[in-house]
């Protein structure tokens, strides 16, 4: 009878939500500070890990195993705790500077239910935790502790790390399988799907006509831009007067978490759709046209009409600005005032340039986001194209260039009827409005459709090649910096002092000398890898490809052409980064809408708290995305080679060499996220 009663109590407790005791045992209690290292505790067979939390990392100071105490006087760097599957571990944690939190992906209970807080001067004991699943798990700070708080992480590697070995082997296997598929010599196909197949979205029954009406409606552009402009205004105000702690400030949470992540998904599924809604050049455009959305009947433009220099008519400036922004990214994405300032500069430059050098030369050649979005969107499934190029050729008036009473000519200075790449198409849909033949449409196609012919005709497009290298290397760098256990990289990029508490630098723009020196090291490292080291490796592989394929083309041409093959890889690596950001930090942008300035408001009555969504699966989700990108990239390289050499055998041999580089890159990526 008593057994039955106990069972009933168990079930009732479970239904009432008291089932959390089924989670790995995690408890926290406060003991005195002197007990920390000097008074080792006895927790039976459990390892005791003495962990120091600081801005912005976790450092292992000592590990006690039975009566043996291994001390790391300077703390462990990188912050990786290696345990074996089945080990029981007790964490004795101390904070060096400010109040921190403690959370382990997949092992801690939800921080909403039980938040472990580590206050300075007190020791918190957590555990014992039994690490019964192998893999890589992040230790995260769960209490906002300063600008780089979201990226305050350490690693726990539970050996044997089968996940990592499987995914590393999976990268190799995926490379081999892709090559085995390509051996059959598929023409114009991507992983089995024909690149010829396209869907004319505006003729899809049901949604097509509605979409067409919306896109051809003159007010459409204005309707999607003004909410963005409003958000940008809040971003600027929040940047200057809001809470200096990044994740509590609208300018950081919405721009560098929500926007940054969503743009990567937009690139894949909607091409340059961000450029459709981007408010940066909007003011200039409205002033120049003297209209918010209508077509100005008498086409007197309010501009100086200066000609854009031909030497700037490429992606160099945008690429280098993107790299420059990336060099200050740990600073930019954590200091609201820096973000606010950046947007004031971008809006001012965008507006002034539209008036002095119309139309969208700022978007084409300067905007760092426009540069990478345009470049990557060549691997998008979305494109704005003509239905029938023959009709465009026959049509003499070319309203898509010159404009018509219904729409302006392409402000991106393209011939929309003939273009076949997304690089400089800003998806403003003016061509859809101005074409009297209804020959412009939106097409959905397979990833990488345009890459082969783009690559083959790309002579001397070094700007686009280097954009590929910058984006590819930075994709991996960002994951390493923001989600890696290497505190020194964060400190270098953050202009902080290595291993130091950066309390004094919160919200400040002027770092110390040591911080500047560290930043220069970081800048040389990041710029060196993306501008020199990886391109050099890529060139070497291109040269070997040429030799192996016995190709007549010169190495430069092969090198430039194959750089386009990287684009699907880049897109998927950045989508992986976006997934990591969204699953872990989803709460920050949502709460920022309710409290834009980070002043403790709750305008929308939200009750969300930081609680990552299944973070323990991130290493595998991210690895899978990178491997998919790699396979697409190998296939794209083959398509490019096939178009260039006009011969399967040569193309296959050249692709095999490049595939080796792509597989190695995938293994490096898998090591970064899961190893």
């Amino acid at each position: 009878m008593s057994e039955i009663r106990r069972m009933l109590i168990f079930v009732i407790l479970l239904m009432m939500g008291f089932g959390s005791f089924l989670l790995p045992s995690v408890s926290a209690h406060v003991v005195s500070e002197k007990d920390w290292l000097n008074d080792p505790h006895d927790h039976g067979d459990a390892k005791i890990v003495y962990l120091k939390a600081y801005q912005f990392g976790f450092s292992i100071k000592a590990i006690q195993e039975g009566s043996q105490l291994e001390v790391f006087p300077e703390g462990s760097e990188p912050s990786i705790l290696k345990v074996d599957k089945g080990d029981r571990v007790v964490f004795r944690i101390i904070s060096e500077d400010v109040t921190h939190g403690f959370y382990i992906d997949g092992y801690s209970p939800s921080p909403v239910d039980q938040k472990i807080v580590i206050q300075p001067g007190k020791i918190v004991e957590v555990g014992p935790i039994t690490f019964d699943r192998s893999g890589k798990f992040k230790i995260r700070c769960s209490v906002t502790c300063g600008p780089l708080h979201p990226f305050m992480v350490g690693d726990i590697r539970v050996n044997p790390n089968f996940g990592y070995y499987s995914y590393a082997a999976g990268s190799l296997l995926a490379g081999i399988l892709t090559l085995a598929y390509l051996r059959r010599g598929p023409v114009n196909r991507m992983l089995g799907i024909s690149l010829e197949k396209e869907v004319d979205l505006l003729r899809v029954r049901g949604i097509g006509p509605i979409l067409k009406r919306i896109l051809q409606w003159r007010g459409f552009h204005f309707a999607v831009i003004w909410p963005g402009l409003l958000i940008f205004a809040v971003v600027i105000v929040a940047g200057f007067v809001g809470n200096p702690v990044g994740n509590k400030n609208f300018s950081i949470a919405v721009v560098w978490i929500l926007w940054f992540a969503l743009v990567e998904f937009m690139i894949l599924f909607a091409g340059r759709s961000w450029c459709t809604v981007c408010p940066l050049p909007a003011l200039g455009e409205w002033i120049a046209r003297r209209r918010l959305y209508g077509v100005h009947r008498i086409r007197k433009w309010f501009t100086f009409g200066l000609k854009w220099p031909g030497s700037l008519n490429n992606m160099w400036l945008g690429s280098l600005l993107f790299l420059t922004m990336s060099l200050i990214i740990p600073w930019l994405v954590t200091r609201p005032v820096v973000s606010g300032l950046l947007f004031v500069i971008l809006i001012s430059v965008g507006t002034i340039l539209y008036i002095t050098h119309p139309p969208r030369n700022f978007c084409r050649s300067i905007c760092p986001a426009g540069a990478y979005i345009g470049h990557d969107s060549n691997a998008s499934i979305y494109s704005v194209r003509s239905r029938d190029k023959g009709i465009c050729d026959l049509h003499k008036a070319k309203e898509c260039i010159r404009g018509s009473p219904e729409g302006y000519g392409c402000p991106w200075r393209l011939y929309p009827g003939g273009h076949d790449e997304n690089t400089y198409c800003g998806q403003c849909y003016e061509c859809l409005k101005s074409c009297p033949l209804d020959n412009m449409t939106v097409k959905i196609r397979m990833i990488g459709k345009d890459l082969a012919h783009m690559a083959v005709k790309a002579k001397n497009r070094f700007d686009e090649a280097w954009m590929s290298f910058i984006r590819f290397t930075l994709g991996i760098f960002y994951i390493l910096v923001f989600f890696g256990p290497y505190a020194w990289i964060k400190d270098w990029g953050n202009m902080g002092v290595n291993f130091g508490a950066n309390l004094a630098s919160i919200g400040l723009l002027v770092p110390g000398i040591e911080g500047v020196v560290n930043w220069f090291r970081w800048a040389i490292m990041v710029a060196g890898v993306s501008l020199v080291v990886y391109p050099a490796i890529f060139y070497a592989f291109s040269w070997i490809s040429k030799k192996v394929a016995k190709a007549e083309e010169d190495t430069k041409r092969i090198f430039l052409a194959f750089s386009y093959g990287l684009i699907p890889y880049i897109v998927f690596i950045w989508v992986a980064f976006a997934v990591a950001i969204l699953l872990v930090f989803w709460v920050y942008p949502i709460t920022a809408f309710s409290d834009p300035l980070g002043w403790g408001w709750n305008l929308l009555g939200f009750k969300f708290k930081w609680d990552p969504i299944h973070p323990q699966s991130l290493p595998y989700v991210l690895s899978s995305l990178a491997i998919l990108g790699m396979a697409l990239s190998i296939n794209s390289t083959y398509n490019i080679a096939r178009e260039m050499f006009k011969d399967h055998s040569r193309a296959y041999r050249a692709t095999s060499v490049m595939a080796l580089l792509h597989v190695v890159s995938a293994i490096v990526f898998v090591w970064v996220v899961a190893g």
Partner: protein
Amino acid sequence: MKGEPKNHRELFQKINDVLVRRYWNRLAWFENQPLSSDKVCKPVHEVFDYVLSAIKMGLDKRSETAYCGSLFLYSVLRETQRRFTSDVNEANELHEVGKELALFLWNGLEKEFSENDQVNLTARIEKLKSEISDYLWNEFSKIRFRRLEGQNE
């Protein structure tokens, strides 16, 4: 320009031919609604108004006359309750005629404007406008009359 009309009569004839084929044929001939000269000559009038404004504002002749071609085309499309045409020849013909008309007007009017003779400019444009309107209305009336006669038979 290849095929450019040598004089204004030739141009009027060309406009007339294109309007018959591409515009008037689509108007509701046999409906009871009255068709005014303004409705019949709407595309031409729009080009007149635009050219006058563009000259006064000192806009570029080449790009604005090309734009007038589109203006002419879109005017026909609008008046025939269409947003697009699927016929590329129709688009080309209407554009070409509109552009030639604009060029003819521009060449005729820019002399007055350069001499800053606003009164003369307005008077000239009104004269030209009524001249071409009368011509087109007469042509239209003849065609309409023939069609109505054919219908009654």
